[in-house]
């Protein structure tokens, strides 16, 4: 029987990709970049004062009746929130120390 092994049989898989079809992956960075957020997620509008002023942390402490009386008197007299009096007191304290 003749040896026909050197004759080429048509490939069942079809032709392989041509050289022009080289992949572009060699241009990719070695470390895959972490996915970046393309659009910032929807943030619902919220007009509550705590959000506007960023006063969002609970801050409970025990004080003497005298301290309570003093701070509330100042707040009432000057039309401030208790937190505003404390913020100003802290600012004044830091200014005095520097």
């Amino acid at each position, binding site marked *: 029987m003749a040896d026909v092994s050197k004759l080429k049989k048509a*490939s069942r898989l079809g032709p392989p990709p041509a050289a022009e079809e080289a992949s572009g992956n060699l241009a*990719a960075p070695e*470390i895959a970049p972490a996915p970046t957020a393309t659009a910032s997620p929807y943030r619902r509008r919220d007009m509550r004062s705590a959000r506007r002023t960023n006063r969002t942390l609970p801050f409970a402490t025990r004080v003497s009746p005298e301290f309570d009386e003093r701070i509330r008197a100042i707040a009432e007299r000057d039309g401030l929130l208790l937190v505003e009096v404390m913020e100003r007191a802290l600012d004044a304290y830091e200014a005095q120390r520097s």
Partner: protein
Amino acid sequence: MAAVVAFVSQKGGVGKSTLARALAREAAAGGLRVKIADLDTQQGTSVDWHRQRLAAGIEPVVSVEAFATAAQALGVANGYDILIIDGPARTSQATLDIARAANLVVQPTGASLDDLRPAVREFHALAKAGVPTARLTFALNRIGTPAEEADARAYLEEAGYSVLAGCLLERPAYRQAQNGGHAITETRFSALKERADALIQSLIDRVTE
């Protein structure tokens, strides 16, 4: 200077780690100082396998280390007789660096067109970037039948690349061996072991050509 053999692919699960471990096992059994550089830090499969192998007390001990970048891995090559690069499941700029430094770049592939086409495109890209095709070779893995092997081999050769002699069959025994920390050349099944040995031998022959 160590011989550098790199296993690369744009896909996962084609057999990079499988072949890297088997080559490392055979090199270590032959008394060579060998290191597997596991570049897939996101998965670290060869590092896990190494831990399993150490825990099971399997000889010879094969050294495996994880590296974040190809440059770091290539930097330690001088301390070994053979540095085996187990690449990540994607190709990048680093693949080109690896290919330029390697004595042999092996791309394992399955026999489906879905595996073969992208595999050829990756080698086309390396060839286009100036890596000599003599340093690029394919290894056939997860083969079902001799006809499937022949078709895949013919396809890859037509594309202009060499294909290692022999192939790995799709067999659970290979997975079982590796699950237990063994290399595929250490499987209990002698016919499968012979096939794995033959493939690794043809790989070694190519490196030393």
